[in-house]
């Protein structure tokens, strides 16, 4: 089990406050979604949380240990991270790419052992990419690439998984695949944090949502508590159709809010 505790976290980049006094407790077992408009500080939060970005004030602890004091390798073993728009600089095979996830467990000159082999196979199985093993990763379609990158993160075998916008450029079918994969990992007892833009997906799969705006955490709760008309207007500046009652909750953005001369149309949502 791994849990993350954040207190009074503030990050300034280039003299501008990107994160202001953010506090949260993240526990395993539930799929946690981070939502908010562009520039709300979601990615910055994630990167500061994982020690990838220095922060000016506040504290981030992972299982009681301050992030800044952890050895990079221990941090890597505790929490796997898939950055937004993950790039791949060399045309590696899919299997080799997924194998990169084992690096935190390997010494500089040691060879991967049976345990690493097993973790790689299992990760490819869980992400449903076993059939792609020998393909060149740079030649895959967007959907295949997204699952391969997820498998790379799963291969770390960490108890925590942090994924930044995994749904970008995926078709609806692959979006569902990825979200179900993440939800499964959370059910298995992992700490899973995912940054999302698709509010329907967030409502449908996440157990808990963190709503960010202008560098602050402004709401933290279940999708039903977070996704309200008032918040859509205040945070995203939109009106939308919200239906969280059925098996497939929906949040459909309808119009900019406030919309000049067309209030009644927005009210309909």
């Amino acid at each position, binding site marked *: 089990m791994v849990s993350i505790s954040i207190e009074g976290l503030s990050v300034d980049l280039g003299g501008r406050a990107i994160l202001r006094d953010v506090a949260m407790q993240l526990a395993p077992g539930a799929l946690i979604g981070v939502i908010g408009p562009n520039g709300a500080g979601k990615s910055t939060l994630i990167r500061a949380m994982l020690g990838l970005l220095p922060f000016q004030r506040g504290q981030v602890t992972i299982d009681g240990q301050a992030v800044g004091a952890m050895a*990079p390798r221990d941090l890597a073993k505790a929490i796997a991270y898939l*950055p937004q728009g993950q790039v791949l600089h060399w045309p590696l095979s899919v299997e080799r790419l997924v194998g990169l996830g084992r690096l*935190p467990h390997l010494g500089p000159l040691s060879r991967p052992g049976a345990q690493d082999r097993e973790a790689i196979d299992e990760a490819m199985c869980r992400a449903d990419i076993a059939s792609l093993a020998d393909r060149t990763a740079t030649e895959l379609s967007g959907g295949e690439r997204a699952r391969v990158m997820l498998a790379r993160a799963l291969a770390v075998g960490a108890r925590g998984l942090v994924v930044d916008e995994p749904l970008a450029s995926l078709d609806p079918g692959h979006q569902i695949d990825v979200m179900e994969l993440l939800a499964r990992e959370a059910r298995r007892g992992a700490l899973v944090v995912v940054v999302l833009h698709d509010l329907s997906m967030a409502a449908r799969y996440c157990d808990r949502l963190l709503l960010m705006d202008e560098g602050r955490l402004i709401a933290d709760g279940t999708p039903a508590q977070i996704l309200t008309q008032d918040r859509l207007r205040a945070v995203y500046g939109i009106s939308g159709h919200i239906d969280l009652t059925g098996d497939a909750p929906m949040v459909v953005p309808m119009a900019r809010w406030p919309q000049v001369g067309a209030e009644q149309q927005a009210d309909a949502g």
Partner: protein
Amino acid sequence: MMRHRHPALVPALAIITASVAILSLGLGPVSIPVGRIMAVLTGHGDAIDRAILIDLRLPRMLIGLLVGAMLGLAGAVLQGYLRNPLAEPSVLGASNAAALGAVGALYFGIAQWHIAMLPIMAIAGALVALGALFFLAGESESPLTLILAGIAVSTLALACISLALNLSPNPFAAMEIMAWLLGSIENRSFEHVWIVLPCVAIGMALLLYDGRALDALSLGEDGARSLGVDLPRLRLRLLLGVAIGVGGAVAVSGSIGFIGLIVPHLMRPLTDRSPSAILLPSMLGGALLLTASDMLVRIIPSTNELKLGVVTAFLGVPVFLAHLLRERRLW
């Protein structure tokens, strides 16, 4: 993981390199057949053969192997670190700055103080250049910034060498400075081997250590850091490894271009293309290419021996271009 596409690549390269190196001993004004070479190497053979082979040709062969291996490895490591197929020690200014250090040692007479002064100045040149480079490129560590800054440093070093050439007191000094620009390993003795050997050994140890970190960098800087790579330490080891290794190599051979650029490209398709998998093959391939080039230097009839850097370019560039045209779809 670590599965080479051709599992026998490294052993095969090692055998070919060793064979070519032994063959190269036979080349020179006095041609010595392989049988007599083997006799000398196994401790027999006549005294004249031994004097020619051990005292004259063996140092040259060893320097060729060491310098070539160092340049090939440094190129492979830099391409992996910068995630850029254009990177090599001379693109980052390391070779030219080391040559400038050596030229400075000659020009100001520092080289006469002690035999170790010239390699020390060469290493210092490479260190200052790479240090300035990483300082110029700043915290961003963006590969493109580093390469652009490297071209600036390289050009400046070249300009300073040309200045030394212009101001050199006599044509002989100018000739000697020219040799640093184009590279040569003729007339080397065991003294030179003892200079280059420790530098190359340290450089190689530092560079071979980080194969896995280079693999992690395939995923970019955040990707690598989230896999537990300590980037500032990696950068420090790399800086020292390239500066000491390439600095020491340039101190005895002058600035030999293209090997660090070409060899990793030739080796990459033979491996699984991960940065760590091309390190050893590039090391052996560099040794092979430089030794073969040095044989050509001796075979091609000319009044002055051709400069090694010229031959590596003539030999390497066509192969490189042919390879590039075949492979370009992958970039």
